[in-house]
């Protein structure tokens, strides 16, 4: 275990260093902007991965909860003069409260019934945002959201500072997720994904455990939305659309479903692939589509899933070999 973890540690430190140096190497501000946005999406995808990848429930309303968080920041800061950081904290709370009630109803359903129900929940969130003009400004959107103000001596005026802010939140999000999925609680989530009947027979309270995973994932969505609002500083109803959830699902599938870093890798890879195909304009789907299909065919577990599976096989073989020899010697 320890010698398998060491290179991972070193790799993580190297990746963090790369991320920290990225703004220095970026040819212009646009690159920093795109990367920051990819990080925000990665936070949201990390949350979706908890309910989809670890617990096995596809929640198609995830973008809707991200919109709830974003609009919480937008409405509170612009219309009510609430300080940004308070509004930001509330973006996680409002998504969690809505997530709790949506989860309480939708998690009574299983398999595709659950998926269809959450698709409806997402669409209702979209409609509410679009039609409830008094609260949300409807199709006009929320304009002029303030940038995150300084925390002590650290200000977030420049795009580079905002990049580091978003990066810090991404690291925090991953660290908390690491805690969750490695714990007994995370094992209960995975047990549900593996077989609901078996998990229940092992004493896992299905409703309570699934609801917890659901609410936690919406907290991630809400906070990612809150960051998005402070970063893009303009909001329209379209961020609640289910097509955004599908993008997040694609990130997860490409990077590795049910792995800690899969959603991040997927978000980064696909963001930059999409960017580099911009020159093809409307034809880029002709390139992008087959690329995705090939990836899913040859790496059904995603990029990180593929690497992990190979490593797990190698590890268990190394460890199993001496144990087997011992067993045979004893026999």
């Amino acid at each position, binding site marked *: 275990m320890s010698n398998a973890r060491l290179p991972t540690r070193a790799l993580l430190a190297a990746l963090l260093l790369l991320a920290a140096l990225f703004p220095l190497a970026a040819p212009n501000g646009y690159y920093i902007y795109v990367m920051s946005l990819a990080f925000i999406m990665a936070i949201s995808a990390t949350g979706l991965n908890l309910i989809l990848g670890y617990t096995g429930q596809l929640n198609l309303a995830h973008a809707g909860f991200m919109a709830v968080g974003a609009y919480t920041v937008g409405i509170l800061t612009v219309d009510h003069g609430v300080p940004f950081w308070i509004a930001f904290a509330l973006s996680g709370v409002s998504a969690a409260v809505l997530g709790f009630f949506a989860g309480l109803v939708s998690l009574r359903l299983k398999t595709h019934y659950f998926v269809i129900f959450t698709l409806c929940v997402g669409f209702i969130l979209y409609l509410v945002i679009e039609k409830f003009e008094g609260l949300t400004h409807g199709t006009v959107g929320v304009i002029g959201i303030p940038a995150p103000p300084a925390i002590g001596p650290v200000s977030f005026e420049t795009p580079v500072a905002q990049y580091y802010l978003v990066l810090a939140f991404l690291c925090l999000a991953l660290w908390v997720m690491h805690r*969750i999925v490695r714990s007994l609680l995370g094992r209960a989530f995975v047990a549900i994904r593996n077989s609901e009947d*078996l998990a229940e027979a092992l004493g896992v*309270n299905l409703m309570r455990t699934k609801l917890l995973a659901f609410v936690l994932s919406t907290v991630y969505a809400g906070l990612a939305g809150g960051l998005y609002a402070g970063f893009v500083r303009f909001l329209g109803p379209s961020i609640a659309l289910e097509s955004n959830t599908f993008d997040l699902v694609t990130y997860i599938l490409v990077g590795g479903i049910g792995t800690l870093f899969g959603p991040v890798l997927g978000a980064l890879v696909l963001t930059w692939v999409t960017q580099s195909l911009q020159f093809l304009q409307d034809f880029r789907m002709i390139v992008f589509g087959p690329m995705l299909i090939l990836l899913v065919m040859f790496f059904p577990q995603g990029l990180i899933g593929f690497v992990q599976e190979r490593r797990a096989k190698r590890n*268990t073989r190394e460890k199993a070999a001496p144990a087997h020899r011992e067993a045979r010697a004893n026999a």
Partner: protein
Amino acid sequence: MLEIRNLTKTFGGLAAVRDVSTRFEKGRISAIIGPNGAGKSTFFNLIAGLHRPTSGQILFEGADVTGLRPDQMAVRGVARSFQTTHLFDKASVLDNLIVGHRLRTKSTFWDVLLNTRRLRDEERACRAKAEEVLDFVGLSSVADRLAGEISQEERKRAAFALALATDPKILLLDEPAGGVNPEETAGLAALIRKMAAGGLTVCLIEHKMDMIMSLADTIVVLDHGEMIAEGPPSSVQSNPRVIEAYLGADYVAA
């Protein structure tokens, strides 16, 4: 320790289990037999809380547990294995078992977030329990193998270990020897005997008659949801209703 009173379950008019009354004593091995579709799995599902009985009562250690959920039954000490063994193939055998002891732990999400001492102690306890039950079922040598790579018989043993990790008082095994060869069946029977010797009450559904006859202290025979016989193997074996319904003429001849 487990008493069943007039248990009935109907699925849309069809009685899968009809007015069954029996009791299972501590430390004994009981077998449920009967032809396919007799209601054996449904009977287990009722006891384990997966189905709610249409009528009747289930008493466990004197308390009425009728209508409790499966997770509540598990906490009270009713463990079960399923007809098909669900293990997560991409994790190690040991990893698959750690969650089995979670129901005996108390840490919550806040312990996880703060990485409290309680959580770390409980995680260590769950791992120790997994190692202990793996050793008990004789799988220590494959603890680090991926669950997808072990043999069918080893999967059956792993399923026992998972049930044992919950610290049960009674174990319900649905066709524990399905799909394994006669030699391995004997090994599994020995393991079941070892579990009962440790004070565990065991209740199993099985088609392999020679295994049942040598293993079970009592046999309950179901046919079309009804209990048609109950008693020690010798009396059940010679019961004319049982021979007619299930064992068949060849069995008597054999």
